[in-house]
């Protein structure tokens, strides 16, 4: 595959259709600028600021834009709030739709058949593979990203974090907790 991609780049660059420096700029953006730290800031602010959490429920795209995040694969955002007894899980069964603007590029497992096939039919089994066991009476709400809406889960705030700053709280927010395959970390 490496040779096949190199050949395609050689052809497109040779024909003047693609500038290799543009490829470099795209890669650099997703390696260094856009990643789950963006989403963690959204979650931490939602935990800290009830008005912001309210705005996130009403218009997630606009609320996320106030932190400077948006754009490609984050044009139409929806926030899903976990609560005691209700857990949210996000999947794209048809391809690999993922909220790049707040989580960066998706992990391989998110795009692969095991997760895409099982998240909708066996969410509890999927969560168990991620080490997450929820009480039997917890509702699990799975969201299949079949259109251009992109979903971010707002996990429950861990106990023992009263008075923490947004920066401290953001360190507890994992990528998986914003997909729904994990929970926020407990304070050390």
């Amino acid at each position, binding site marked *: 595959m490496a040779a096949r991609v190199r050949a395609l780049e050689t052809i497109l660059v040779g024909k003047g259709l*693609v*500038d290799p420096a543009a490829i470099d700029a795209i890669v650099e953006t997703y390696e260094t600028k856009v990643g789950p730290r963006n989403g963690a800031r959204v979650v931490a602010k939602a935990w800290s600021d009830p008005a912001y959490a309210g705005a996130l429920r009403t218009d997630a795209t606009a609320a996320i834009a106030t932190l400077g995040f948006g754009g490609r694969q984050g044009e139409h955002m929806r926030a899903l709030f976990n609560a005691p007894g209700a857990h949210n899980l996000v999947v794209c069964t048809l391809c690999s739709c993922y909220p790049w603007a707040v989580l960066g590029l998706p992990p391989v497992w998110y795009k692969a*058949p095991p997760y895409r096939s099982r998240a909708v*039919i066996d969410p509890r089994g999927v969560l168990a593979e991620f080490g997450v066991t929820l009480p039997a009476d917890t509702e699990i709400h799975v969201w299949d990203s079949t*259109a251009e809406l992109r979903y971010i889960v707002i996990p429950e705030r861990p106990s023992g974090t009263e008075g923490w700053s947004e920066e401290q709280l953001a360190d507890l927010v994992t990528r998986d907790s914003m997909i729904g395959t994990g929970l926020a970390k407990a304070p050390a």
Partner: protein
Amino acid sequence: MNGPHDLGGQMGFGPIAPETGEPYFHAEWEKRALGLTLAAGFMGAWNIDESRHARESLHPADYYRSSYYEIWIKALETLLTRHGFVTPADLAAARPVDAAAMPKRTLAPEFVPTLLARGGPCDRPIESAAKFAVGDRVRTANDHPTGHTRLPRYARGKFGAIVAVHEGYVLPDSNAHGHGEAPERLYTVRFPAPELWGASADPRSTVSIDAWESYLERA
């Protein structure tokens, strides 16, 4: 189409096996695959729906043995060939042989931040009033179109409830085939798990999809 991509509820793919400390890319070529896909898409010859359809149109055996970036590259070759930018002779020679079609635009490096920050919004103004309201019971279509659609097989002919009413959105079923954006109102529809998976499914759990108005009828 009832293609290999429509994975919801299929069985036999094994464990998920998440990787600890996973890097964004597992090989240098994956970086080039991402960049090439975005830069070529910027030429404006196809849209996101046509590119998704090119990916799901891979032969099922090819789709399942390919990683996601491999799927992207194979589909990109299809799109570039279909739109006259690349020919089989170019690909066979691994260098430019034939002349290319004229692109609408090409991506300059300095424009990349703007492009990624702007994205490609798919909402469209729509005149007609919403046919459904939150709480309405609906049944999804039981159609099996041969072209692109975003109604997964597991959710066809099923009863659910509207939980959100959205704006108009570009209709992939039309846009993927060059038949125009044909925007329709979008809804989020929630199904109890047993409606989709039978009596043994957890009655407290649900699955929601986003569905265009023409995917739905009142129930």
